[in-house]
């Protein structure tokens, strides 16, 4: 056995034993390092170019600080959602996939779609280390596609390819809306036949999210909408705990 190989057994359901392995931590922190390096290079480049763009050193600082302050609320809202997903994916995968590149919705969606192709369900008895590895691979490759599209399109758009986006405005509104809605409605609906507890979990999370959106409009409090996802997931899990305890969970 090579020193790199993990002493694992694909059929074990001890996900965190694989998901929190040191090499995954190193790769996860590597992505953090890349972003830090990128930021340093960008700040230095912006400093150099600022006078030519008619921008003072003070304005650069103000921009940095405004961006930082505006990000506090949304960042903590992401943290809440990420912590709720730790049990499912382990810390390194959550940090990179949910915290950074992707988002909770896409990544849990992608992971679940992958698990389904193996006849398994996330979090259930069928969610083995092997299923986790395949799901992690597929969600990471999916995330890589966003970056690939960015790498390909940005130079084209820069050269004035704005026409690309203007071919037909309906393509840019109807098609993505249809894709997004169908994806999440399908993923949600597939949860319903699993058990009565799944049904009440989904409905209560949806209700709390709806309430947050409604109140944020009514009271003009934007932060309520930002935090809605986190609040809704926690409320859903709380309801799930009691429903599961009351014997509404899947029949083992």
């Amino acid at each position: 056995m090579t020193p790199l190989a993990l002493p694992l057994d694909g059929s074990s359901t001890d996900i965190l034993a694989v998901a929190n392995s040191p090499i995954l931590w190193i790769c996860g922190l590597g992505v953090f390092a890349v972003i830090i390096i990128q930021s340093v290079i960008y700040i230095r480049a912006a400093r150099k170019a600022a006078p030519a763009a008619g921008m003072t050193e003070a304005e650069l600082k103000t921009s940095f600080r405004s961006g930082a302050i505006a990000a506090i609320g949304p960042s903590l809202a992401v943290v809440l959602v990420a912590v709720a997903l730790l049990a499912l994916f382990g810390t390194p995968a959550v940090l990179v996939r949910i915290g950074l590149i992707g988002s909770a919705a896409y990544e849990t969606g992608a992971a679940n779609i992958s698990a389904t192709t193996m006849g398994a369900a996330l979090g259930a008895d069928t969610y083995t280390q092997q299923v986790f590895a395949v799901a992690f691979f597929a969600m990471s490759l999916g995330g890589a596609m966003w970056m690939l599209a960015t790498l390909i399109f940005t130079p084209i758009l820069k050269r004035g390819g704005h026409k690309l986006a203007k071919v037909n405005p309906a393509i840019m509104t109807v098609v993505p809306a249809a894709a997004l809605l169908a994806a999440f409605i399908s993923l949600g609906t597939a949860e319903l036949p699993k058990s009565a507890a799944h049904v009440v979990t989904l409905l209560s999370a949806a209700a709390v999210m709806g309430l947050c959106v409604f109140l944020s409009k009514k009271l003009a409090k934007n932060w309520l909408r930002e935090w809605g996802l986190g609040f809704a997931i926690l409320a859903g899990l709380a309801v799930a705990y009691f429903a599961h305890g009351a014997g509404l969970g899947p029949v083992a």
Partner: protein
Amino acid sequence: MSTSLITEASTASLDEFDRTTSRWGRLTMIAGLIISLAGPMYLVVFGNLDVATSQLWTAFAAVAGTFFVIWLVEPLTYFPILGPAAMYQAFMIGNISNKLLPSALVAQTNIGAKPGTKRGDLAAVMAICGAAAVHLTSLLVFVGLLGTWLISVIPEDLIAVARLYVLPAVMGAVIVQAIVSMKQLRPTLIAFGVVLVVQFVLLPLVPGLTMMSTALSVIGTIFIAWFARKRTSAVVA
């Protein structure tokens, strides 16, 4: 004459900003892409988990069938607001619409810069750097350290419940979020209709399609929503 000299000098230094950010922006993004794939590759290759290549491609195909439209559309949508330099930051840091765009807009407002101008682009880049600093720190501290600790002290039965039910909880909330932020009644109703038909009519008839059910619903909804769209522009007779 002195003005033209200044203009030349400033054009040169703005060009340099473009060159630096597009070269290093791309290199760092490629590095991020490779490192983010290295983790799962390591598990698959060295993990002793008996993963077959065909399983990987099947899983990826099902994910691609569902999300390929979003992969293509998002970069096109955000480019005009972010500008070329910030594109390479945004798609690596993530949470663009709920975190990075508001940060960039607040910064531009605070220094009175318009989006799309050079001042606006620089303000957006600096704001995203500021947002990244806050975001990386809070992720490392609250998820990396505190979160990992929290998971280790929470009783096992609570963790099991969270693991079993976090997916319906996320999806319930995300469906509502998607409906509200898209604000498009027709595609929403069509999506519900298509999903119900696929889930409760098609799958019981052809159980082999289960693994592709989400991709089927997505593609079906796109087609129907496209042909049933509200045509606002004048229809050619």
